[in-house]
């Protein structure tokens, strides 16, 4: 009668330990530390780094998709403006 309750307690302790260690390791595996953000801080990560290129892409997008106005741009979607 005593053994099963001890087993249960041990299983619970094991489970808690596994959750703690596994959870921590998983979190550290995906977390980018403050000193590892060099690539994220690179200018190439900035979507607005080329204003002219972005405007041209946007024009092509709304012309082809007939989606003018969807991003706050006026026009009818005819591709003529």
């Amino acid at each position, binding site marked *: 009668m005593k053994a099963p309750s001890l087993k249960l307690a041990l299983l619970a302790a*094991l489970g808690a330990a596994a959750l703690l260690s596994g959870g921590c390791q998983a979190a550290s595996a995906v977390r980018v530390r403050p*000193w590892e953000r060099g690539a994220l801080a690179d200018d190439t990560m900035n979507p607005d780094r080329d204003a002219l290129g972005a405007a041209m892409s946007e024009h092509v997008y709304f012309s082809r998709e007939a989606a003018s106005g969807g991003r706050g741009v006026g026009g009818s979607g005819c591709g003529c403006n």
Partner: protein
Amino acid sequence: MVTLTRNSRALGAAAALAAIAATSPAQVAPGNSFPSLSAAGLDGGVLPFTAGKVVLVDFWASWCAPCKASFPVYSRIQSDYADRGLVIVAVGVDDGLAAFNAFVAKLKPSFVTVHDANHALVSGVQVPTMPTSYLVDRTGKVRFMHPGFHGDQTERELRREIEMLLAEKTPAP
């Protein structure tokens, strides 16, 4: 008896797992001793003599804009307080030495810059953001910590704290 042995093993395994979970380094904060700079395997510069001095340790990177803004301020602070016992050590955490060297060559700091190429020191300290600076008193204990750099505000705070730490008695040898 067999059950007891099994239980002991299971308990041992649980303890080991809990120990693994607890091994991730804690963030260095005011009140803690700052890790040894000489034992951190830093390169890119010669570490100054820091025993019995007030030390400002700054963690920076070439890709971090506030770090760039902080260097002229640290140069001013260094020139104002070096005679009274302040030492500034700026620890660069760039992945590559080229970026580190280019940043130092461009800003020409008057204080010591070293490179934590393996991130051994910065990982041990667990800086919360870039840049972060730590003011360490004459006994080697962290007294103030500055996450981020906020221009004049940070400079004012640093000067006030440095004045306070420099005024404290030097520990007996």
